[in-house]
């Protein structure tokens, strides 16, 4: 019974914790990190408990906000009485959200180890950090479409703040760009939700799904082919695709990643787009369900087309970049393209049970794998920047000799990103490719294959510089005022450890691929049966 409290704790703990640095800051300076570390340790413990309940205890943990007054009750709509529709807001931890909860909690805690030395060290930064974590948790756990928008905005606002926390002009501009584009995207999402609310009269994901399927007595048929519903999917997809940085809606993302402080880049690259993609997957699979896409095949085809373009364009743009941070920022555009591709493949009318299964596996494994890989990559890049002042690809020449651990992590993570077995990047890509093969969507198969080659293109360029280009002449490397200006100039064990840990995890998770896919089996079955709830 106590498990029902866990979802709400996960959201409340960091939000309450966020007030502490500001309050305690009145008495002591630089208390933020300690508060954040304490809060996030609690958060991680709670998240692990919840994960245990969901995956080992085979539970679908539901919390209804507001207590006894609310919950699933008899509702009278006009002359129809209906059992089991909800009043209020649900928080749901099921086979899909459970993994993300654990991921968010652990990554947020791990990045703290990096931020201790890398900064920023102001108390306000840690308040924003905790708020962001709370927002991400809410985004992952909520079972309510409007509530999701609220958390999307919390996450967005905190990210804008964190991006700008570098206090440089460039980061302010990047944050502003992100603010405007991100808010526009969120608004699109809100419009979509509004359409759905107008037609279905509910905001709860499960209920919306049931109404769309035509289950209650007051709707005569399934609503799948109604223009309002189709348009709402269009708005929601575009809104969330903007948040997940799918080409050509990605324009905010490279600036935001490259201009924010290194710690922030690690955190947001690992979590923010990931949760947006999660939201898109959840709404696509569970709220709209495969039946919707069977009725509107063009919707999913368009989604797939955009995703495929994103894979190719993102990779090409990544290969064209000179700043390492931008290389991997664009790489995220490509990787989320892959994920959205698999999201679409799972519900494509041509996908049989097998293809759906593989596509869902692909999404889950690649979401988690990409978070680990990309977080680790940015950690390694940030540490190389603070220690050796290397920001551009050409400045990486010969660094491998000076920074063997960071370079080694970068290499392992890079290979994982390419999809070299047995790393997790391979497992995710393999399932995505396999799903496309099973569904006989050959262009997608080609794109998956091409993405591997294109990833190789930019990763190999970096590794070639690191390992095979001799160190630049001393005269070139001598003037490095940038190091001092960055404020860091040194690398802590925590920073290196985070990169190494990510590299180890990237390989280790590859071996745990079977466990990951077993964990989401209930989700696969729910999608295959077009069930609105994911029951174990």
């Amino acid at each position, binding site marked *: 019974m106590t498990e029902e409290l866990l979802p709400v704790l996960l959201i409340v703990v960091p939000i309450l914790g966020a007030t502490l640095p500001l309050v305690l800051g009145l008495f002591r300076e630089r208390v933020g990190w300690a508060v954040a570390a304490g809060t996030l340790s609690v958060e991680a413990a709670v998240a692990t408990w919840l994960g245990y309940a969901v995956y080992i205890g085979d539970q679908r943990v539901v919390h209804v906000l507001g207590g006894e007054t609310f919950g699933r009750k008899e509702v009278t709509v006009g002359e129809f009485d209906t059992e089991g529709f909800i009043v209020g807001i649900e928080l749901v931890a099921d086979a899909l959200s459970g993994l993300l909860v654990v991921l968010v909690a652990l990554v947020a805690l791990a990045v703290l180890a990096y931020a201790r030395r890398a900064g920023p060290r102001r108390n306000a930064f840690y308040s924003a950090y905790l708020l962001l974590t709370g927002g991400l948790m809410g985004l992952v756990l909520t079972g309510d479409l409007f509530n999701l928008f609220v958390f999307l905005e919390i996450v967005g606002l905190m990210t804008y703040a964190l991006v700008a926390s570098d206090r440089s002009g460039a980061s302010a501009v990047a944050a502003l760009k992100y603010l405007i584009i991100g808010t526009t995207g969120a608004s699109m999402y809100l419009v979509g939700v509004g359409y759905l609310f107008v037609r279905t009269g509910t905001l709860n994901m499960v209920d919306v799904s049931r109404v769309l399927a035509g289950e209650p007595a007051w709707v005569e048929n399934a609503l799948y082919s109604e223009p309002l519903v189709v348009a709402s*999917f269009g708005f929601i997809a575009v809104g969330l695709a903007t948040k997940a940085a799918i080409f050509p809606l990605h324009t905010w993302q490279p600036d935001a990643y490259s201009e924010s402080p290194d710690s922030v880049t690690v955190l947001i690259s690992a979590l923010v787009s990931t949760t947006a993609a999660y939201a898109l997957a959840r709404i696509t699979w569970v709220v709209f369900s495969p039946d919707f896409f069977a009725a509107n095949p063009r919707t999913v085809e368009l989604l797939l087309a955009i995703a495929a373009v994103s894979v190719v364009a993102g990779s090409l743009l990544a290969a064209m970049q000179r700043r390492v941070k931008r290389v991997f920022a664009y790489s995220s555009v490509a990787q989320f393209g892959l994920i959205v591709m698999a999201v679409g493949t799972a519900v494509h009318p041509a996908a049989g049970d097998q293809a759906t299964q593989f596509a869902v596996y692909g999404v889950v494994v690649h979401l988690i794998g990409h978070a680990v890989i990309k977080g680790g990559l940015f950690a390694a890049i940030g540490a190389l920047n603070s220690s050796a002042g290397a920001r551009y690809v050409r400045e990486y020449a010969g660094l491998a000799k000076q920074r063997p651990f960071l370079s080694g992590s970068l290499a392992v993570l890079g290979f994982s990103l390419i999809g070299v077995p047995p790393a997790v990047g391979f497992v995710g890509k393999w399932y995505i490719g396999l799903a496309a093969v099973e569904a006989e969507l050959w262009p997608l198969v080609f794109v998956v294959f091409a993405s591997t080659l294109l990833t190789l293109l930019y990763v190999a360029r970096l590794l070639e510089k690191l390992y095979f280009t001799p160190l630049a002449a001393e005269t070139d490397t001598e003037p490095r005022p940038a190091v001092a200006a960055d404020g860091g100039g040194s690398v802590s064990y925590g920073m290196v450890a985070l990169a190494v840990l990510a590299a180890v995890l990237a390989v280790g998770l590859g071996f745990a691929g079977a466990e990951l896919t077993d964990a989401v089996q209930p989700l696969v079955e729910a999608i295959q049966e077009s069930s609105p709830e994911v029951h174990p």
Partner: protein
Amino acid sequence: MLYELAPPFALVLVAAVLAAVLPRTPGHAVGVLATGAVAALSWIVPEGTYIDVDLFGVFDAVVYNVDPFSRLMGLIFGFIGAAAVLYSYASDADGSQTAIALSYVGTSLGAVYAGDWLTLIFFWELMAVTSTLLVWYYGGRAVRSGFRYAVLHGIGGSLFLAAIVWHYAEVGTVAFTGGGITAGVPAALAAIGIGVNVGFVGLHAWLPDTYPSPHFAASVFLCVFTTKTGVYGMYRAFPDGHLWIAYMGGAMAVFGAFAALLQSDMRRLLSYHIQSQVGYMVAGVGLGGAAIGHGGKYYHELATAGAFGHVFNHILYKGLLFMTVGVIIYRTGKESLDHIGGLGRHMPLTAITFAVAALSIAGFPGFNGFVSKGMIIGAADKKHLEALWYLLLIGGVGTFLSFIKLGYFAFLEGEYSGTVEDANIGQSIAMVSVAGLCVLFGLVPGLLFDILPVSAEAYEYTTYTTGHVAEGLVLALLGLVGFAILRGPLHHVGRVPDIDAVYNRGFFYGGRVLVVGVTELYALLDRGAVRFVSATYWVGANPTLAVLRVSRLLPQSFQPAWTEEQPQTDGGAPSRLYIRAGIGTSILLLASVLTVVLVVVL
């Protein structure tokens, strides 16, 4: 069973390794023991013994399989192997050469004891490699002929391999099914591929080219294994025979015999006779089907038995011939008939054993060749294939003629100046024991019938009938008369060009054209690739300029506006192309995407 622990090829290959590392004398001893053991094993190991392995989880390979045909081959290969190793030892062959020869024997044994096509082709190809090494080991002129040999056998082996792959694709198993290779293209490929090994007319030129080149003891090995394994393979591929193969055998018998007649180099002469004799065997294999020619009662059994009997006998007398000729070369250092003569009085033992071998190969009554050749000729007669029958008889006349020539010019005519010793003791033992067998199997044909893979009851052949003996004597008489007439011209014929004169040139000039063509084509591609890469480099280094140049091709109104201040290069560094979208553009993009999405989905 214990026998499965010691497949013959493994025994001999181990002996080959030992012979390579041991000193000369114990090395040869091990070789004699191993090959002798193989002969003994072939005799005692019961039919149906086999070793199977699961290859790559796909192929059920049977690397050792004992059936009547492989037993016969193993028996004679083992025996002649032992005799040849002994002869090598007596002929000052060094340990390494004998080691290579033993590896050649071992791979041949692997081929004849193979229980499936895959193992067969595996050892078949290895046999080509080891025999090439054996030729190459001698150096000098042998290197070039060995290379030609390798190329031709590489092609033949590949064709046979292709046939097997095709057969596998059709049948789904590599095991011998008893039905031979799939008819159609695989059969044609197999016939040509094996045809290289047995020396089909036109594919035979490697025989007289290669076998006279290496050490004379090596020739004793070479003359035995490759062609006879070929005959065995031909039987495996075509157990029901084929009329074309039978006629090809007839053509080989005639062509080989008369080409031999024109040779002066002794080993070259003998090599043509291999083709001729293998022609009889191929004819026998070709006739080995009930559907070939006139059905009659079990005449195809007679043909198959004759073919394998001829394999057995031929190995004995051809090995013996190469040994006697080897002794002449050993003692005189001369290869050509033009430079020797009157050796009979100096080397009586060699002369006598040569006479036995010559009478055997020519099929004179009382010698083993008479038995098996008679069976094949008899089968052709009984099946009413007159043309083939005449071909085989004419081949027989040619054989008499050329061996009368060889014997006459080497041992009888003229006087050898200087002293020449006869064969040494080791050579003598090897030669006399083989010669004894030639006579024994000729006088008591029942012994041969007992070991043939086809049981004697199946064909009921009586060797010594008036007709058969008369046939043999008439052929001999024709040979004598012919030689009496042709004696003058046959001496000093000079070198007669063979088919290889055509295709060696064709190969050379064709190869030149090919090499030059490929080189030029590659150079062309290379230039193209280099240009493409440098163009790409340039675009990468000067993206702005590239865009500028491309945009000049566009209509005026579409061209982007370039400000004069736009730097083309950035302080020596390549210029950069800024393609970042501003906030406004981004929102425009977002709105456009949304519009497109809505338009498409609604």
